[in-house]
């Protein structure tokens, strides 16, 4: 399974970054999140990164970033492996 993001639905509220940090630290600590959201309000672009520390919230029913994305931009989907 993998987490995918639809750029068109993302409002750049950074809730995913925040809840992810809570998952890792039990505090609200965006610097310790697996997700970094960077938004440029001038040109309207949003950059979204997820690093290797993401464990897809192994102890939860679903990844918390997906659960709390009220705009439906994040989804958990089956990973399709491509073979030559």
């Amino acid at each position, binding site marked *: 399974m993998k987490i995918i993001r639809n750029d068109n639905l993302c*409002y*750049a509220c950074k*809730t995913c970054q925040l809840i992810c940090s809570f998952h890792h630290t039990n*505090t609200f600590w965006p*610097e310790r999140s697996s997700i970094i959201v960077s938004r440029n*309000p*001038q*040109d*309207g672009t949003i950059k979204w990164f997820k690093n290797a520390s993401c464990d897809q919230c192994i102890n939860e029913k679903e990844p918390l970033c997906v659960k709390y994305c009220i705009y439906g931009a994040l989804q958990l989907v089956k990973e399709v492996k491509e073979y030559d």
Partner: protein
Amino acid sequence: MIERRDIKGCLAGKILRVDLSNKKIWAEDTEKYAKKTLGGRGINSLIMINEIAPQVKWYDPENLLCFGVGSLVGTMAPGACRVDVSTINVFSGGKGSANVGGFWGAELKYAGYDNIIIIGKSEKAVYLYINDNHIEIREANFIWGKTIFETEKILQQKLGDNDIKIASIGPAGENRVRGSAIIIDTARAAGGSGVGCVMGDKRLKAIVVRGHGKIEVAEPERFMKAVEKCYRQCKNEPNTKMMHKAPLNLYSDPEWEGWNTNIVVKNGQDDQWEKVNRIRLMNFKTGVPNLQKGVRACYSCPTGCMPYMEINKGKYKGNKGEGFWINTIMGHACRFNISDPESVVESWLLTNELGLDGDYVAAGLSWIFELYEKGMINQKDTDGLELTWGNGDALNKLIKKLAYREGFGDFLADGMAEVAKKIGQNSEYYLIQVKGQPSIEPFRIPKGWALAVSTSPVAGRHLRGATMGSNKYGPKPRPGNFGVTDYQNQAKGVVWQGKTKELEDNLGICNYVGTWSGANFLTIADFTELINAGMGLDLTEEDLMNHYAVIGRNLEKAFNTLHTGMSRKDDLPPKRFQEEEVKSGPYKGYKIEENKYNKMLDEFYELWGWDKKTGMQTRTGLENLGLIDIAEKIEKQGKLIDK
């Protein structure tokens, strides 16, 4: 009396103090202030009333410029992103306060600070740099004179970090144009009260923040349960979808009820805008919605109400940025009778970019347009501009003149009340203002709205108790009467909404996600649980609504009492709306009826526990709140009602 327990979470812990005259920086603990007020605006108000002497004016170095981040900001509490900016109001001389969302507030808390209190004045242009504990007052010549967009870009490049958060002023604030805003994250404005003018007067161009720390909550599991419940409510609330693009969704329907109840046209000549204009401005194919390229949310917000606009044709083609709001329609369109979508979007972008307050621009300059129509000023005065209704290009040129104090703009920049004195000819009658601040608000039709705006301690703005005035929107149940044009029982709704707003500003919860717009976003019960679980307190809904909310309002009112001669006479709506009727539409013939308004005002004072005759605070009322020292200060000035 409330038991004041130690606060165990949510706060960053420190208040940053900055003296610009002596270039000193120090910090103190937040807790003693937060125990009394819960945080945010409450702390700003408390510090202002304790530390600013009554004779101090907005332009004195002793005036404080206070930034207060709400106590829940930085956590997952939905919509917790708001910052209160308080200072002496440049229009009324009393309490000034403006509230703003975005990302700056949370960043400040991650840097370790709940509030910033700035005293003094710098001789040279400076900016404040905060990177956790590394704090400096730095020279700002390289950004002085720059627009908001330019300032942010240059600072990001110079500091090599695109994720710094910036609160800055534009040319308007630098030039001490009275209606100047402080702009956060490019397009979010702390607009009212002239807060940007005060920042410019202190020669402070920007506050740059980067924080790497954390916010802890007292009981993490319990707190997240409360958050989860709130998110579920927001997700299931039918109004959430509508609020995602509120101004565009609601007003794109030319039959929407708000068009009939919330609009003031041509500086108050009517309260009804022709349908042909509504359709031209807001239709989906060629109107403003067609210029929207996306939507952006503030930090941790489930509502997401801010459109990202890009102008795709005409002379303003290519201009873009966040921001288009209901106030844009009420102000930059209807008040000037401008229905050209590109022009209206441009004027809003320009207002932000130059660091002006949108409401001030709309209310102040539409008055100037009316004076032009009435022949009190002419093209010779306006540097050749034809200030005729519907002329968007002229408005955009005038906005620039105002911000840069160019020619006629300089004549306008010291405030519209001053302009009225210079022009004379009964021009003041046409200026829609409350307590000295120009106001875009509707008065003649929505009576609860009129009451809230007229009584607002921060002068003529609706965010001290205005109700939606509709059964369709707003939380249920709530007290009061929501027949929009009725006078009866409106005071109950206005006081209830005023109290919830006090709490929201202390907690930093956006009014939209809080108790204002949707039927079931966050409730007072949710606030209570978030506070108790987050801060480790044991408060009841009753404690919040009948103690903390009441303290907040009384602090602002007491500041006005101590610093100005304000009383009941200043809580009345503009004279024009008591004399001139609405000319067309379903509410044709409506105006404010003085007797009925006064009855509503009586009830409003009674509910707040103030003296009906004078509108002033009483000894018992203040003492019951534990504000004995403030009662004594008011008594010394002979303004305390001995009841």
